[in-house]
């Protein structure tokens, strides 16, 4: 980390999966810090636990031991509703398989986190401003002409851009991206990474990106590698 304040801090994270009698220890004392506005790439071989660590960081999954601090506060001590709120407002997820809701069109998919965030009366009162924000975001991502299309009618790159727009609609402090280019051809992957890098610069958001692609990882400020259940530093922006 490079002198910025720590936003997300994972300390001594341990996680074991049990499949019948077999136990697989995926994380054994992993430590990771993500600073405010920092772009961190988490690499590692397949099955090394990258996605698990990302999910623990985003509170989608719990760890067996260790602690997750967000803004200096221990999230395990948060109430359930505060965790939901935090996940909704402070984290944005981008998945390898996009995970868009097939029944909703592009605009609706992007607006969904905003709707989750807003109480019903707020959703009614602030529907127009949120819609305007979503339209601006989609325009910026080059999807202005695809608003009423459903995910099945979009290409892979377009779907991933919609997923990014959805992740950004609530202006989260951290963007958690799980191999966002893994399902795309190199050229489209490059476009998506350019987009992430641009947004990172513009919005000064922290990004924790999981990838096993060295080219993608190289776009980050800092690269860390997960091996044998522990996080090891690989490089920093200064060393690159």
């Amino acid at each position: 980390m490079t002198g910025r304040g720590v936003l997300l801090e994972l300390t001594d994270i341990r996680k074991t999966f049990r499949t019948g009698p077999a136990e697989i220890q995926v994380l054994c004392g992993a430590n990771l810090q993500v600073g405010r506005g920092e772009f961190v790439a988490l690499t590692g071989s397949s099955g090394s636990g990258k996605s698990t660590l990302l999910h623990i960081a985003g509170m989608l999954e719990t760890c067996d031991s260790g602690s997750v601090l967000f803004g200096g506060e221990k999230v395990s001590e948060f109430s359930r509703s505060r965790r939901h709120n935090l996940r909704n407002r402070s984290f944005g997820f981008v998945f390898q398989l996009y995970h868009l809701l097939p029944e909703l069109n592009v605009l609706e998919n992007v607006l969904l986190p905003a709707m989750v965030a807003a109480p019903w009366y707020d959703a009614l009162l602030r529907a127009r401003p949120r819609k305007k924000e979503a339209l601006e975001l989609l325009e910026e991502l080059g999807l202005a002409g695809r608003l009423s299309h459903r995910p099945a009618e979009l290409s892979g790159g377009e779907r991933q851009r919609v997923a990014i727009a959805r992740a950004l609609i609530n202006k989260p402090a951290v963007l958690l991206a799980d191999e966002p280019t893994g399902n795309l051809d190199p050229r489209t992957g490059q476009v998506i990474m350019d987009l992430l890098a641009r947004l990172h610069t513009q919005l000064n958001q922290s990004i924790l990106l999981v990838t096993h692609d060295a080219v993608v990882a190289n776009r980050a400020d800092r690269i860390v590698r997960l091996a044998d259940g522990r996080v090891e530093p690989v490089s920093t922006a200064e060393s690159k």
Partner: protein
Amino acid sequence: MYKLFLCFRYLTRKGIVAFPILAVWLCVMMLIIVNSIMTGFVNRVRDAGRGLMGDVVIESSDMAGFGHYRKLQSAINALPQVAASTPVITVYGLLNLPEWGDNRPVQIVGIDSVSKADVTDFRQSLFWQYKAPHQAVADLGGGGFPVSGRQLVARAKVLYNKALAVENRRQKRLLAMPPIPPHAWFYGMREHWRQIAHEDFEQSVYRLDRADRDLQFARGLPPPAVYKSAAALVAALVPRDPSFKPPPAAAYRYDNPKAEPKNGIIVGVDMGFYTRDRFGHYHRPQVVRFSPAILTVVPVTLKGTLTTPQSGRFMIVDDSHTKVFTVDRRTVYAPFKVVQKMAFMQRQDLLDGGVRPARCSQIQIRVHDDGNPAAVLAARQAIETVVDKFERNHPQMIMANVKVKTWDQMQAEFIHAVDKERDLITFLLGLMSLVVVVVIFLIFFMIVRDKTRDIGIIKAIGGSEFGVGSIFVLYGLLISAAGALPGLIGGVLFVRYDNQIHDDFLWRYFGISIWNRKIYVFSRIPDQVDSHAVAIIVLLAIVAGLVGALIPAMIAARQDPVEALRYE
């Protein structure tokens, strides 16, 4: 808000939801139809029974009846709640039609025509004297129930307008056998269609014939101002009625002591003298009316033993359609005094110098405010007090097992049986409707499995367990409401047009006849939408949708988001 939004999206964009909606729709519709028809049936039976016996009845369960009924009647008539009362005698006997060689056991009811008309709807149940007014005019000359000139004119005006409408239609449309429609392509349907066309033709002829007669009668009416009394009306109208063929002199006068045979009798419409068509109309051959009949009464002594049967000559002057089949099938009405005498229930001077008072079987009473059940019950209470007091003051009166009952209590056994039957059928169909819960459960289970990844996504963007569960509960609610609403509308509309659907669609196009009017007492399918029951049915349907969605919603709420996102 997002929960409702997602519910609507799932509802409008997932075709599979059509099945639970359809299941709820059909169940709600079926329950409303069954409940309404059963309610209509119960109420029609109830109304018919009430029209038959008045509001309150004093009756003796002993066939010997009870005495001093006139004094009792006077005491009851003095009550402020009582509007009118009439004595009735019920005995058993035989009806013999010598010209037909027909002999059958009957219940003979002795009635006083004037007071009976004040208490019950009996007059309205008579065909010739009430439903065919031009004949009633004729009958006024020969006796019968009183029909005022004003009533007759009002009725004639209605018939006149109706007849004019039919006349106009007839002139516009040529009466012909309708062509066989293209859909009746197979042999059975062609035959069925021919039968329908034939029946339609007969029906038109029948209606036109009746309208013609009514029209002729109505056209012959002088201005109403002419009439000062029913007698004046008769005098004015009888010569002008071309269809009127006067009965031979006063021979057929009802209750005319000089006539031979002396008295008229009224027979129940379902005694088998008439045929009934598919539309529920009775076809009355002219030979029945004015047929001579021999009525034999089997009297019962005060000790309850039979004594010498008494026979007398009568003439059938009318038929009564009370709409209570058991009554219309076996009841013959004769003048009260005549029956009383034949049953040995008249005043008798005894050998020891004493007097045995005249008796009757029932006193039927009409009360003021008869539409109010509480008022009827209060009147019954007052009448019972009078009867008790009367019994104490007249210890010598023959009064065995006299009871005072309201019309509702009189027919309680039958009505309550039908009521229970309605509840039972609705309950059984309601149980069958549990299928709806199972259908919704299974489809929701499938939807939750299908939407596993969506659940993961919703949780990843901050949706709570409660929020995800609520989506599916709301979804169940919307589906059941989306099914219940058209079910409600469809059910009510079906009930509204059930007779047309039965006659003009099921019978006409498929030859299916569920409500056979040749068999049932009511010529139309009885129906009455009970708003209370309908509200309960709709509410239960919505609850059923919620119950069906509840377990899948709980499964969805507990779904682990990471596993859900990995779900393939």
